[in-house]
């Protein structure tokens, strides 16, 4: 890995996770306040994360396996927030029903 590629790859990977986190945060905030604008902004963040993942796959000298792992986790990022949210809601509504 060249010195240049080292820094570029590391920064892209950091941004990738950060964008994924931004998606999770905005999505949850959007659901909480029932604002579709926030959820859409979250979607944009996820799209950014996915685009970064593609950039990592296309432009960096990482080994093939790692690129695959990053692309796969970009897809998994997409489903974690909605699944987690639905689970939390079910959990809490079940709680209120039993109380």
């Amino acid at each position: 890995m060249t010195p240049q590629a080292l820094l570029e790859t590391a920064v892209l990977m950091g941004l990738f996770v950060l964008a994924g986190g931004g998606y999770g945060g905005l999505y949850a905030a959007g659901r909480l306040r029932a604002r579709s604008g926030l959820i859409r902004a979250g979607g944009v963040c996820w799209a950014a994360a996915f685009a970064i993942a593609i950039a990592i796959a296309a432009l960096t000298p990482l080994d093939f396996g790692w690129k695959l792992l990053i692309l796969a986790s970009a897809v998994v990022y997409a489903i974690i927030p909605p699944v987690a949210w639905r689970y939390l809601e079910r959990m809490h509504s079940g709680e209120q029903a039993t109380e």
Partner: protein
Amino acid sequence: MDIQDPSFWRSGAISTTLVMLVVLAFLTIDSLQVISVGGANVPKYDVINQQIGYAYNWSRRADVPVIGGPQPLFGKTVTEAEAAGLMRTGKLVIQSRACMDCHTIFGNGAYYGPDLTKSWLDPAWQQIWMPMTGKTTREDAMVEFLMHPDKYPTWTRAMPNLHLTEDEARATVAYLKWISAVDTNGFPANFGQAGTSP
């Protein structure tokens, strides 16, 4: 299967943990074989009787130690038992002086001083400290430096004098030579080959 039931997740937690622990146990058994002295990655202590290099290996895609012909440390070939004694003392020096709270070995430790993994191979001994100490061999320069580091500073972050005896300094040099022969999967990369990144 009710995912709202805590006991569902309790079973998940227990089984996941157990599976991971079993896998770790097997990997540990294998790893300990590889890293025991004389194992695949860690040479015997008497490797200090030989020349040690570090070169890029294309099939491994990493830098690996290269053990060459005889090159006795301090001009004296040691037995395996003598070498083990030196290593024991060397390790005790490294612990008692808290070397790794300034330096790193294999990149582990503190980051105030340079990494010592390949310090035996560092060109600075020949280029700087042999002329500075007036010693004719690398190991003698290392001993002199380790005993009086504050007399031979090379830059502002100088090494303090930790009052090593001569025996302790010689054992430390032996330890550093042995460490440089450990196969570290290519860490550090491009050692001593400024700008030639493969």
